[in-house]
């Protein structure tokens, strides 16, 4: 019996929905996890807000930190629940189940991404609400809609990058764990989560602009705060840059996943536990 295009599409859409559903349900299963995922990142963000308060910086800098703190939640989700996810699945012996299903790996990853975005949004919302209500950072609500549009575009590009990383982590054992750790604070620095990325200087900020989260955050700050955001790239370029990065990352993710999976099968590393 042959499978038509419609069946393939239906199966892949089903895989996306199923994988996203698992992630959303799991994120609400453990109450302590919800507290840990929302309150504790808020503490880290609060510390950096207080740094600016200690420096007697204008309140807009505190707003930079709050927006950066919300974006960090998504970056950490990409790192630990997307890029590393095939590594975890391998550790738990579930990766081979994914591989024998007749669906695209990208569908599984897209499901993870959508579920992860839903899960992380609660965390980011707490950070944003806490920043506005507790620290009283200025937030121009009238510009929230265009900023939200840019935010969605940024997330698409960031999670596409996560798909590429996922293909790399597919091959790795324990290195995946350490690499994810390595991508944490240095990316916080390069993306300008706590300060305008322009402060890095033209050369470093240009390299940082290869990271969609750095470009997106720069754009969101510019939409919300205009000149005061100390933007690096001109605002009109940013949507175009993000679309280009999205297309490039999706293409690379597709190629990379196929290549790594074939390589992993040939070398027998897809069922090899890293620990």
């Amino acid at each position, binding site marked *: 019996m042959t499978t038509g295009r419609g069946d393939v599409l239906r199966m892949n859409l089903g895989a996306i929905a199923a994988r996203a559903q698992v992630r959303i349900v799991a994120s609400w299963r453990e109450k302590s996890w919800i507290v840990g995922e929302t309150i*504790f990142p808020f*503490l880290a963000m609060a510390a950096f807000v207080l*740094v600016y308060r200690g*420096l007697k*910086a204008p309140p807009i800098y505190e707003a930079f930190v709050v927006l950066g703190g919300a974006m960090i939640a998504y970056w950490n989700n990409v790192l630990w629940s997307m890029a590393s996810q095939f590594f975890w699945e391998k550790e738990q012996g579930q990766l081979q189940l994914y591989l024998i299903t007749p669906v695209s790996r990208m569908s599984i990853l897209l499901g993870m991404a959508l579920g992860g975005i839903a899960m992380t949004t609660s965390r980011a919302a707490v950070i944003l609400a806490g920043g506005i209500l507790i620290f009283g950072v200025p937030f121009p609500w009238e510009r929230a809609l265009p900023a939200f549009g840019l935010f969605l575009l940024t997330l698409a590009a960031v999670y596409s990058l996560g798909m590429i990383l996922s293909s790399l982590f597919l091959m790795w054992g324990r290195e995946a764990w350490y690499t994810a*750790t390595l991508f944490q604070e240095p990316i916080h620095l390069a993306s300008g989560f706590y300060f305008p990325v322009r*402060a890095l200087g033209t050369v470093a900020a240009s390299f940082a602009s290869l990271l969609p989260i750095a470009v997106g955050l720069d754009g969101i700050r510019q939409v919300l705060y205009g000149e005061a955001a*100390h933007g690096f790239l001109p605002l009109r370029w940013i949507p175009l840059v993000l679309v280009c990065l999205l297309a490039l990352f999706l293409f690379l993710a597709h190629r990379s996943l196929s290549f790594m999976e074939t390589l992993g099968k040939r070398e027998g590393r897809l069922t090899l536990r890293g620990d």
Partner: protein
Amino acid sequence: MKRTLDVIRSSAWLGWQIEANWADPFLFLVYAIAKPLATTLILFFMVRVVSAGTATQDTFLFLFLGNTFFLYVTEVLIGISWAVFRDREDYETLKYIYTAPIRFLSYLLGRGFTKVTTATLGVLVALLFGKFALGLPLGGAGTPWGLVVLAVALGLVAVLWLGIILAGASLIVARHSINMNEGLSGLFFLLSGAVFPLEVLPAWARAISLALPFTYWLELLRRLILGRPYAAPLAQTPDLSLWGVLALSTAGLTVAALLWFRWCEHVARSRGLIDWKTNY
């Protein structure tokens, strides 16, 4: 005593193998120093973007020292309790360690020493980076380095015992409570004034801050290295009092950790939690 020291040494070596055997030494060095350097540079740029206003190099110097030495708290505190989860649920070796003729507490202290070593590497690199790359005036002719080392060691003992308290809790809670350890570390980072002056905290938070040993530890280290006080609420507190608070709290934590850990072990064994797997 010799037996205990042997166990500590062996488990420290085991911890080192677990931490470092996945990569060549250069890659491991990159990994060990990436985090402290990145957080240092984040603070550096934060100060720089507001430097046209009120922030000075002196301000950065205090933030830098607090952030650098706080690395011990995050690494060691989380590292010891994380060892319980990893051994119990990932490697599934905790039950074998328990059936071996060694004391589990000694084993965990050894694992803690591995973290102390990697954290020390990070702290030293950050200090050297601060002095030579960022040009910070760290340590002059009059800096009492012997006292600095003593203060670091005393604070580290406190961190180690606090780590043991958390490891005890980790024995009787599920894996996802790693959030508890990271959260506590984040709370200490916020309340001990590691990266901002205590006076910006609201009064109630400042009161909690002054009840934490790390607040006094960081203030003492800053005074020893830079020769002047930083936190306004502690400005009138003499150095000797800071030493006293640190020594007393370390002794208190030691006693509390020993009692608490013994109780947690008893609960874990009586409820059959030693080979508990909650990795779902």
